[in-house]
């Protein structure tokens, strides 16, 4: 009778040990699935660093009768539309652009990107309401904007220019704004 009670006690202890061991094993396996493994941690860290690192872009601006290029950096943005807007803001903020006909007299009002890859660049005149420039200066100013967008963002396929939110015939009396613009690399100084 005593030996059978002893056997029952041993069996209970064994059952308890097996159950707790299984529980511990389950807990260990579960926690090992959610805990970051070193490689994943590295990837997330790299992404974070990349988000914080400025994006290098190429600005196109009128210079000595042609378009010149200059590298600059802009803060990374969550989407291409915001990045493109930041790129043009960097162009308008450039000190050399501030001296150039047309670009010195206009400001960026807004930029929209539609699903077909058309960037709508909405411009507004600055303090001087009438923009005066030759046809060549007007052409260089427009393609400074167009090339800056199309050379830096492959999602942008073409550009349309608006004035104060509406379609306009020209910026300074010569270049047709009723069309879409593709990049013109023949205007860039080699």
């Amino acid at each position, binding site marked *: 009778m005593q030996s059978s009670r002893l056997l029952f006690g041993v069996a209970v202890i064994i059952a308890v040990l097996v159950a707790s061991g299984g529980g511990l094993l389950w807990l260990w396996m579960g926690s090992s699935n959610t805990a970051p493994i070193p490689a994943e941690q590295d990837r997330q860290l790299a992404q974070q660093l990349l988000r914080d690192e400025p994006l290098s872009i190429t600005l196109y601006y009128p210079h000595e*009768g042609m378009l010149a290029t200059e590298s600059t950096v802009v803060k990374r943005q969550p989407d291409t539309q915001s990045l493109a807007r930041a790129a043009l803001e960097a162009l308008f903020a450039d000190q050399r652009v501030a001296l150039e006909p047309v670009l010195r007299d206009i400001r960026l009002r807004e930029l929209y990107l539609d699903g077909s890859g058309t960037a709508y660049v909405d411009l507004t005149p600055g303090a001087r309401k009438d923009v*005066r*420039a*030759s*046809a*060549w*200066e007007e*052409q260089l100013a427009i393609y400074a904007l167009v090339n800056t967008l199309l050379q830096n963002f492959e999602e942008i396929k*073409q550009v349309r220019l608006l004035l104060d939110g*509406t*379609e*306009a*015939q*020209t910026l300074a*009396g*010569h*270049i*047709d*704004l*009723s*069309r*879409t*613009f*593709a990049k013109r690399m023949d205007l860039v100084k080699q």
Partner: protein
Amino acid sequence: MRTLFALMVLCSLSLPVNAGAVGNGLTVNSVRHASYATFTRLVFEIEAAAPYVLIRSTDGRSVTLSSYDGPFLLKTPLPMVRDSVVLGLELRVEAGRTVVGVRLDGTAGAVKDFVLRGPDRIVIDIAKGAAAPVPVPALPTKKQTVIVLDPGHGGKDTGSVASQGVEKTLALDLALAIRNSLQKDPHLKVVLTREKDQALTLDERAAASNAAGALLFVSIHSSTGTGSRVFIQDLLDEPEPQTVRPVSGDFLGYEAGSEQKELLWGRQQAAHARESGVLGRELARQLVGQDSAEPVQAPLALLKAVDAAAVMIETGMDTDRAQAAAAIVKGIERYVREN
């Protein structure tokens, strides 16, 4: 009150209106405009034929378009229109009704309207009054070749301003000098789009050239510096011409040809790409003085509607103007002789 209301209602009620259109109002899908030598045309493309009301104000300074019965729905933004007779379009509400208002200049003449089908559209022509700014040239005699010279800018639009002068004046002086030389040849008839300091829209300049039956069109501009450039139209990426269904019969029996032609407005230059290239090359070589000189391609708002070989020239303000005039005359004469 001067009004076209009664006439319009009568006219529109006599139209073969689509079944169910009455009471459904007027839906405008698109609005176009074109400025011709003698009138400005507004075209309202509508979803389905329906009666409309067109009223001219007492002082003649505005016209309103609205639906005769039912709502007026505009599915497109109104274009910016501003020329010598139309000062602008606006959508507004008058006495609870939505209308499109057309603001007119004091020189605006008679307002005519008619309706065309295929697609359905309301066409409003506003005549340029007696003080029309664009000279309508007399048709040339059979043996004369018409050359149109277009001095850039004018009126409030001065163009570039530099110590050498104002672009609008320099361009006019140069155009007059070129005309004086060319007119020595009795086979050439030279027409200027403006002969004094006056404002013209780009469409009015192109329309004057087309009305004159020009063989070639030269728009004259100036820029700072000594360099001269010759521009031709950049036709790359131009949209395909809009196709128009055959017209089976207009509502009021008007000829639709002119309106169909208007649909192609702004695409005329495409038919002259080769000639414009030849003219541009000839003038560039004469102006620059190098056989390798080539014209520059640019998407120019003016040239696209010119129905002739067409270029725009920018001469440097520091350039000797007599020499520039002589070079342009030589280039034009050579082009006329060889083409």
